[in-house]
């Protein structure tokens, strides 16, 4: 029995637990799905007052948003539950996980998995599918790889941000707001062309934290559009690299944090 199979069993148990309250599960799923609708409505409203956003048309912006939101929802599904780490720490439930022979992060991700997020992931995927359809993309096999790779990378990047944000809990029990700034803030940042942001802000959130690779650069590649900011065209293929950097940084932060953890003594 390998580790993957153990986690599969644990995820199965989690799904059975959450669906055991059938009615509340259905309601949660529907209300979760509504969230994505509002995110898209915001963009529609913006384009009612302008025809171009930082040099990008409505269709192109929706493609950026569709990819960013899909990535965000994958990350949210995988690691969004880590937001409850502070209550795990406060109630001492983390100790109960640490005495088991599995990774602390892996167990927490499984235990805080919220199956209902699938509702909003599906919606985001529909938005992305529509955006891919309405944009004039000349498809090549390489672009299919770029699309799939960038969806996966976006999911990994956002998961990493959730992990890094929740790691702060090990030092500051109430670090939730700081964490939200990067997770939900990251979602909003990546949903628009980075050309709309001021240059200092953009340097920090597009390149230092490599959020530009979540949606912006892969979309430029799909559209065969040169970067108005003058970056080389191979940036569009760098999403997996950016995701790997973020994931490594998050893993290091988590590892340092969990070793720093001493329990609340409750």
């Amino acid at each position, binding site marked *: *029995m390998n580790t993957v*199979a*153990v986690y599969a*069993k*644990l995820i199965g*148990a989690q799904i*059975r*637990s*959450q669906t*055991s*309250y059938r009615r509340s599960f259905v309601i949660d799923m529907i209300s979760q799905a509504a969230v994505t609708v509002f995110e898209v409505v915001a963009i529609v409203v913006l384009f009612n007052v302008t025809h171009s956003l930082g040099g990008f048309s409505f269709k192109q912006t929706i493609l950026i948003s569709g990819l960013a939101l899909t990535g965000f929802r994958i990350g949210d599904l995988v690691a969004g539950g880590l937001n409850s780490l502070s209550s795990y720490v406060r*109630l*001492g*439930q983390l*100790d*109960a996980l*640490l*005495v*088991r*022979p*599995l*990774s602390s992060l892996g167990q927490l991700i499984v235990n805080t998995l919220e199956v209902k997020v699938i509702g909003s992931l599906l919606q985001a995927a529909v938005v992305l599918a529509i955006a891919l359809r309405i944009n004039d993309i000349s498809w090549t096999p390489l672009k299919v790889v770029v699309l799939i790779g960038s969806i996966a990378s976006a999911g990994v990047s956002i998961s990493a941000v959730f992990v890094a944000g929740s790691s702060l809990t090990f030092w500051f029990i109430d670090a939730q707001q700081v964490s939200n700034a990067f997770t939900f803030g990251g979602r909003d940042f990546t949903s628009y062309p980075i050309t709309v942001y001021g240059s200092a802000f953009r340097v920090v959130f597009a390149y230092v934290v490599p959020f530009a690779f979540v949606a912006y650069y892969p979309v430029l590649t799909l559209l065969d559009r040169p970067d108005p900011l003058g970056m080389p065209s191979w940036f569009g293929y760098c999403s997996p690299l950016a995701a790997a950097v973020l994931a490594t940084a998050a893993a290091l932060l988590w590892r340092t944090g969990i*070793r720093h953890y001493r329990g609340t003594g*409750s």
Partner: protein
Amino acid sequence: MCGLRPVPDRVRLARRIGVVFGQRSQLWWDLPLRESFALLRHIYRVPAAEHAQRLKNYVDLLDVGPLLDTPVRQLSLGQRMRSEVTAALLHAPEVLFLDEPTIGLDVVSKEAVRSALAALAATGEVTVVLTTHDLDDIERLCRRLVVIDHGRVMHDGTLEELHRAYGSRRRVIVELDGPYGRLEVPSATVDRIEAEGRRQTLSFSPSDTTAAAVIGAVAAAAPLRDLQVAEPDIDEVVRRLYTTPSGVPSGTPLGESLEG
């Protein structure tokens, strides 16, 4: 612990110990108890046959058989605690740690958990270590007792050694036929006189005299009708231990003394 360092070797160590938290569950709240046991088998990678055998043994020993198909959230606290202990044993740990296993339980459930633990300790298969504020747990279960105050070990030894070290006094309560004055018994003091001297409580230190000598002296002097010998009260001892004025902490720092 077990020759491993708790933080860097956490995963390897976790396979060799079992832990029960009084106030946090290790079980899957919304699933039948049986499923929690099955999931733990996968987590600890116990071969199916071994697991089934152990489960059968411990289910009998801890009397959780009738609970197996009940969702954990519907178990009473006492039932849940016995289930938690079963869960912690299924990977055959060398040491079982229990953090306040009887906290919040009613008298009957407490007794059920205690006798289950006593039966478990008697099997000799696992070392049982428990922390508790319930002194009855200690009197009932513990061979070795460590008292910790502010991270310092105040006592490490048997219960009897604790009584000896802190001058516990045993008590004899005598009932006499008719009113009687204050009894005079060598090496014992009369602590309490009730019902005009019909009932008197004497205490003595085991190092000075014996219960037999005290009773003999009472029987020789007065019309003895009934008597009762009370063991030293551990509550009393612990209270004295904690209130001992200690400007300089007298205990050994924790961790240096608990090896072995």
